């Protein structure tokens, strides 16, 4: 849902009152999302589908964040799974090796991820285009290399167990419980993302996407904003990784791997760059299909590659914005 549509819909000519408020793409979309999240568990036939939904939610959270960086601000990150993996392994390492209470681990993990993103982002974001892509690729590979090699800390290539959260005496293990936790996080994440993009920050990011020098001469501190959106998107990914770890109970280095980074980028591209709701759709499609059609597993890379190429050539705006554009065109006489 582009901020542009949101601005357009706030003109005085829109219907007034409650209905008008609901008609605005941003609030309408949020309400719809909330309804879907509330109703979905009752529509799913069994626990397997609920667990798929949890995974969709986790990936969607990471992708909403990545979309801010790639879709709105026009940067590129081929190593975002590195932050995802760092968030996950924080939840593994901190309680197991440092005695941190499991409830605190995700919080510390996200803070650490943000810190790393800040330190790494500053120099890396001075690069553009291919150089930025390669640098982020290298970052992601470095993280998964580290995770894979430091056996004592991370269990190496075989992965490690993650201590579960215990709240009021119950260990949080069930897919149903995690569905609600992830749904709340996702809803808040989407709300924050939409608010950010429909604000001076969002305009500054979209401006620097189109013309960095044009933004700078109007006072936009482009370097600072790039770093800001990089850190924010890292936080989303780190949080998603943490949720993944706490839900699954077992983590492996491929959570930070190149393939996962590409999966995230594909979800952004498919759903629609610069569309938060599009990211949800992209995540939903690309997470659930391999889960539901296990025969596709062998073909995953082929399909991912095809989607990336086909999308960029034929559907550069992605699924949701293209549909939105078609609908808008049909509405006009």
């Amino acid at each position, binding site marked *: 849902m582009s901020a542009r549509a949101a601005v357009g819909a706030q003109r005085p000519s829109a219907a007034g009152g409650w209905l008008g408020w609901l008609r605005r793409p941003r609030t309408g979309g949020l309400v719809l999302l909330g309804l879907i999240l509330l109703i979905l568990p009752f529509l799913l036939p069994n626990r397997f589908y609920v667990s798929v939904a949890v995974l969709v939610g986790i990936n969607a959270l990471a992708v909403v964040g990545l979309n801010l960086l790639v879709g709105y601000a026009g940067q590129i990150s081929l190593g975002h799974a590195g932050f995802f993996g760092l968030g996950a392994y924080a939840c593994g390492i901190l309680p197991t090796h440092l005695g941190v209470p499991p409830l605190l681990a995700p919080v510390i993990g996200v803070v650490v991820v943000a810190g790393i993103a800040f330190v790494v982002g500053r120099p890396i974001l001075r690069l553009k285009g291919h150089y930025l892509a390669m640098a982020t690729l290298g970052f992601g590979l470095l993280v998964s290399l580290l995770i894979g090699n430091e056996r004592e800390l991370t269990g190496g290539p075989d992965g490690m167990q993650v201590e579960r959260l215990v709240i009021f005496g119950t260990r949080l293990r069930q897919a149903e419980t995690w569905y609600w936790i992830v749904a709340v996080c996702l809803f808040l994440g989407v709300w924050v993302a939409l608010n950010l993009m429909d604000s001076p920050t969002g305009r500054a990011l979209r401006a620097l996407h189109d013309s960095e*020098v044009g933004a700078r001469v*109007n006072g936009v501190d482009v370097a600072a904003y790039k770093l800001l959106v990089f850190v924010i998107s890292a936080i989303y990914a780190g949080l998603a990784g943490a949720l993944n770890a706490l839900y699954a109970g077992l983590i492996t280095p491929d959570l930070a791997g190149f393939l996962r980074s590409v999966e995230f980028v594909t979800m952004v591209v498919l759903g629609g760059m610069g569309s938060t709701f599009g990211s949800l759709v992209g995540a939903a499609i690309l997470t659930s299909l391999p889960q539901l059609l296990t025969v596709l597993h062998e073909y995953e890379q082929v399909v991912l590659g095809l989607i990336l190429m086909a999308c960029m050539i034929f559907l550069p705006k992605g699924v949701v914005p293209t549909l939105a554009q078609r609908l808008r065109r049909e509405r006009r006489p």
Partner: protein
Amino acid sequence: MILELENLGMRFGGVKAVDGLSYAIERGKVHAIIGPNGAGKTTLFNMVTGIYRPTAGRIRFDGEDVTGMPPEELARRGMCRTFQNLQIFEQMTALENVMVGRHLHEDRNILDHVFRLPRLRASEAASRARALELLEVVGLAELADQPAGALPYGAMKRLEIARALAAEPKLLLLDEPAAGCNATETREIDEVIRGLPRRGVTVGLIEHDMPLVMNLSDHILVLDYGRKLAEGKAAEIRRNPDVIAAYLGTHGQEAVAHA
């Protein structure tokens, strides 16, 4: 003097694009910079607006030495510019483009944005209102919700001016605002520029359109091969034989005589 250039120079490798240039722009006036292609005009602008770092000389803005400061710092001090090749935000609407111009005067606190606090809503409403006003001034109000990339060329040029004005600059530098515009569009831009000193904006402009320059400027600087060839009021420059020889040629002489 709002802008003082002292012995400014720019080298690219062995080429001196600008050499030993000293000039001053007076507050509240319209100054024009003219010269043949390649004379160094845009390079000069790029130096003044922080896109290039001068290899020699100093720049003083409002009394402060701003040599080598980046564009965003200069914008904060009240200097804004438009571009010869347009640096419009094509994916954003015309309205949003102008709102970006207002960036420095908006609520930039990210927490306000994340939680959509009342302070932000007020800032957004004010921004939108001001942006619409400015679009009116440049005659683009009906196109407010169009994607900027879809606008006609002349409209884009005016949009960039509106965006620059949204920053409420003390000094506005326009790089060939009338380039590629037809007679009507040029007239519209002329009107906009004329109104600026009244709003407290000093104007520096690079232009090739001689009638526009002669009628609009209070003072003119002529560049040739990166050096100052002449400076003075419009009437003096018209008659200056060096200027005519270097730049205007025979066709130009006629254009000047009829301007």
